């Protein structure tokens, strides 16, 4: 019976204990929440500096390409055009190699139109089947599994629609 009806003093003591415990838990909770918040801020900072460094590496790799392009232009000023073409071709090859090392892949555009990787700029009647890619106006690229830029293409409307009113 005594258990069921605690005295006032006992109740007060329990209340005091509960309040002390509550304050302790609240303080713990706040500290965990603040730790998380600070962790989040640090992660964001780390991320930012990581991004900056990632740029740095790529830009550094591109510097020789810039040098070569300059050389090609200098050479063109002195020699005939054929040299320029050779030079630019070499620079292009090098730039392509640098970017390929970074994971850049050209999007294939010699089949059927796929809006996930292609962007249609024009569609025109042709003998090719409906939806076939007729021409690539601008190449598309993928970096890893992400489409950086879709390939801009002209696609076929097929034959049956090839009778626009005159």
């Amino acid at each position, binding site marked *: 019976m005594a258990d069921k009806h605690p005295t006032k003093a006992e109740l007060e003591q329990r209340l005091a204990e509960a309040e002390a415990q509550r304050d302790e838990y609240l303080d713990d909770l706040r500290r965990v929440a603040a730790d998380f*918040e*600070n962790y989040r*801020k640090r992660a964001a900072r780390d991320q930012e500096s990581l991004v900056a460094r990632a740029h740095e590496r790529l830009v550094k790799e591109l510097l020789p390409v810039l040098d070569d392009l300059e050389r090609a232009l200098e050479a063109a000023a002195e020699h005939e055009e054929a040299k320029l073409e050779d030079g630019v071709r070499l620079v292009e090859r090098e730039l392509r190699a640098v970017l390929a090392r970074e994971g850049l892949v050209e999007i294939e555009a010699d089949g059927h139109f796929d*809006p996930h990787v292609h962007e249609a*700029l024009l*569609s025109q009647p042709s003998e090719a089947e409906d*939806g076939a890619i007729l021409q690539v106006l*601008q190449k598309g690229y993928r970096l890893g599994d*992400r489409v950086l830029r879709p390939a801009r293409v002209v696609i076929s409307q097929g034959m049956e629609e090839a009778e626009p009113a005159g």
Partner: protein
Amino acid sequence: MAKTIGIDLGTTNSCVAVLEGGEPTVIPNAEGGRTTPSVVAFTKDGQRLVGAPAKRQSVTNPQNTVSSIKRFMGRKFSEVSEEMKIIPYEVVAGPNGDARVKVGDKEYAPPEISAMILQKLKADAEAYLGESVTDAVVTVPAYFNNAQREATKDAGKIAGLNVLRIINEPTAASLAYGLDKEHDHTILVFDLGGGTFDVSVLELGEGVFEVKSTSGDNHLGGDNFDKAIVDWMVAEFKREQGIDLAQDRMALQRLYEAAEKAKIELSSTMSTQINLPFVTATQEGPKHLDLQLTRAKLEELCHDLLERTVGPTKQALKDAGLGPDGIDHVILVGGMTRMPSVQEKVKELIGKEPHKGVNPDEVVAVGAAIQAGVLKGEVKDILLLDVTPLSLGIETKGGVFTRLIERNTTIPTKKSESFTTAEDNQPSVEIHVLQGESEMATFNKTLGKFQLVGIPPAPRGLPQIEVAFDIDANGIINVSAKDLGTGNQQQVRIEGGSGLKQEEVEQMVREAEAHAEEARKLHELADARNQAESLVYSTEKSLKDHRDALDAETIAQIESRLEEVKGVLDSSDAGEIRAKSDALMEASHKLAQAVYEKVQAQQTASSAPSGDGTAGAEEEVVEDAEYEVIDEEAKQS
């Protein structure tokens, strides 16, 4: 617990955000974009596309590509004749007179199309969060009527989302800026999006936002501005080269991209070069476009478009019964509001600096996510954590301010670091607690000072004194210093350290910036001095220990250089101190060399390891810069 997402279902673009750890985060879509085009397409082979892929195929399939569906939400067929003129797909009257989209032989109610967009956003959010999402808060324009709101709710239902609440876009933007926490005031939201312009006046009372008035232009947005720039480029190119690029789809595409880039660049620079090599070709060969666009020219091109925002803004003020001075806050929404001339126009109209900081493309979704968090009880007062407004630290040797806790650290937090003495047998250290952003203690604010005494006699650098900062949730700072050797401890309790007003904090940050150069020089001087002092100390010590291993000439040289360094210690020229220190260091290398030679000679003579430790003593010649030294006391005595 499942997350509730916030969705900005826009006319041209949509955006979704969620609260993570109490902070709103925009969820990137599967394609990596932070916003998703509000476009749905039905391809000839029966596929359904949503977002960027749908947009990409729109030219080849215009009748089956539905964009701007928001313009038809909850509207009667009889109301939308104006809208129908600008869209390429077919709109018909439904059985109850509602506007419906006809694709092929199928009819879709606008909520069904919107649901397809919502479904994609939901799927992308689920992929990001790694759990299923069912609850959402969706935003609508403030002027949406009941039918339009119901239609938006239906769209959510069809998409399998339980729409907890539909909130107004300007309200969401206000929430994103935390304006609900302030007292009663009025807010003007200026929303210039991709294809629509909305201006709303809100009044906040008792924590509830009330829309006082709305106005706008349903056919004014970023697209118009881009077109103005492209038209100019086309005209310039035609004038210079005689070729009309408007007929060339690929060239036009490149022009739009260049216009977009130029617009963004001109937000921060006064002029930009638009460079499009091989933009087209004629029989004479390739043609390049090379134009300069100045900010002034851009403003001229956009002048008429900008003027079109004036009427609606004035109308909204008038309808709210307010003058410009009746507005307390101005919020900008929509990517176009990044443009400086748009911001200036708003400032000119209202006479107030608009709020900035939240990405204007994402601010509505962010606000929706915050509202979602409030509804879910994730945003509770109990865990509204404060931050330290300014950095906290102590003064170390040479008046340098050493930070222990960086500004904007969320509290409660705790940080400790070990320090040591600067002099041999230093009996006490003073802990000078400061707050501020300057590198030098003198420019920062003193919060308290205390002494830790009773450090047993020891060579400098040996005692380890742990200084700990502990800030509780109320901003009360406890700083303690403990001699790890003896266990002696002293501490101070500082109240009201973070009870600074915003203006005071800004003032201190500004002052730190104003003194930054001076502080940097003083810091450099302090470093040079500290290094020189420890160099003198260690050189004197080894000279004493190994005097007999050296010839008189070397001793004389080291001693004279020692004197030279001592002579410039009080100099205020860091370069001079460093030069003399370097000279001394060079001379003392001979000392080290001599000692090693002697030890080696002894070793070969006795062919036994001497192991007396003399060889190691030289290594400490320099570099105790990492010892942060506290010695106000010792220097004064």
